[in-house]
């Protein structure tokens, strides 16, 4: 016997066809695909921090966070690092070719909730991609926020992404953009060291700051402890979690992290809500 149920819909496991309207080379191993739905001219809406499942024909599917466009822009941009079979296949695609897409999925950065606060954005490596739409949203209402700080760390200078935009962020919007690399040669005139060393160099009011962090889990652990050292409250720190993901809709069970499903409860979590499990080995 069955109770009352909602009417049937298309399976959330079936991708929709999207057309690649632009391929952008971001760095030696990273590229962006801007895609639009094939069957309708409308751009889909998404919240900063959400991700899509991208399907390369005959190869497979991967979760990729949405990295743009700016508010009012067309399509959805996905910034992808070519590290595996599927991302490699996506890298080979050209303008006007087709990909499968499911989404947008997942939680978003707390933009509205952070009005009136200073914002510290910390990104490690490709972690800047899901934070870029957050920056766009913050800068779209620049006067609603206090200091905006971007602390960005990568392995080597050639891994830096979106650097062309940094000048606009600095100059037009007064964002404190600070970058650092793990190692560099003489050509590099910037900072060398891990990203959390930048925290003490940034100007913000810790008690009145919302921090948004995305990067490798180990980097985030140290970033959180650095922010806590400066007395940013735990419930004002937001982190992103990553786990194996197959379905993105809470069916497959792969992405569980303690009681959370990364796909539908995350990927963005308020730190104090997951800290019980954060850093536990093999959780």
């Amino acid at each position, binding site marked *: 016997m069955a109770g009352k149920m909602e009417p049937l819909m298309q399976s959330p496991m079936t991708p929709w066809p999207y057309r690649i309207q632009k391929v952008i080379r971001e760095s030696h191993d990273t590229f962006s695909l801007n895609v639009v739905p094939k069957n309708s001219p409308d751009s889909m809406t998404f919240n900063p921090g959400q991700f899509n499942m991208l399907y390369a024909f005959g190869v497979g599917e991967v979760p990729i966070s949405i990295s743009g466009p700016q508010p009012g822009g067309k399509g959805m941009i996905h910034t992808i690092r070519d590290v595996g079979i599927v991302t490699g296949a996506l890298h080979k695609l050209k303008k006007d070719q087709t990909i499968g897409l499911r989404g947008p999925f997942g939680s978003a950065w707390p933009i509205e909730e952070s009005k009136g606060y200073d914002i510290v954005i910390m990104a490690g490596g490709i972690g800047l991609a899901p934070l870029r739409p957050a920056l766009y949203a913050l800068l779209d209402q620049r006067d609603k926020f206090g200091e905006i700080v971007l602390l960005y*760390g990568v392995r080597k200078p050639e891994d830096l992404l979106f650097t062309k935009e940094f000048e606009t962020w600095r100059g037009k919007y007064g964002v404190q953009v600070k970058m650092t690399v793990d190692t560099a040669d003489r050509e590099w*005139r910037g*900072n*060398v*060291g*891990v990203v959390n060393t930048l925290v*003490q*160099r940034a100007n913000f009011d810790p008690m009145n700051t919302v921090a948004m962090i995305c990067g490798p889990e180990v980097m985030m652990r140290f970033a959180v402890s650095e922010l806590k050292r400066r007395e940013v409250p735990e419930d004002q720190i937001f982190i992103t979690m990553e786990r194996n993901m197959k379905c993105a809709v809470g069916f497959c069970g792969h992405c569980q992290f303690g009681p959370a499903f990364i796909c539908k409860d995350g990927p963005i979590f308020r730190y104090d809500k997951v800290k019980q499990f954060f850093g536990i080995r093999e959780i």
Partner: protein
Amino acid sequence: MKSLESILANHPFFKGLEPEYLALITGCASNVKFEAGQFIYRQDEEANSFYIIREGKVALEVCPPGKKPITVQTVSDGEILGWAWLIPPYHWQFDAQAVELTRAIVLDGRCLRTKCGEDHTLGYELLSRLLPVVGQTMEATRLQLLDIYGNND
């Protein structure tokens, strides 16, 4: 022009230090300026200076034979440079080169060591400020070692 003592008093490293100790330390201090590209010290040279960076940026470098110099860390405004003056045999472990115009206050290492030896409370004050910096640097170094952004991070 600001006095050396007030510059030191306002530097994050010496924040909150008792005025009497500040005066003692100022006795070992002098102003220095390094142009971009200028070496501040070289590996294995005798280490007798403790640099309090006011503004600018300094790269700590290693240069393996046959390779370009590798920068392992940079220090900048509000930070400090060098603690080899405190630990025997008082030799620098890296090359330090100014990346940009850098202004600093240099404290004479021998002078500091003597004063710390005479007044252990001053020594304790200095060490309890220096140790967190050393600890953070070690933590940062460990993270760099992990190469967390690598392909298989």
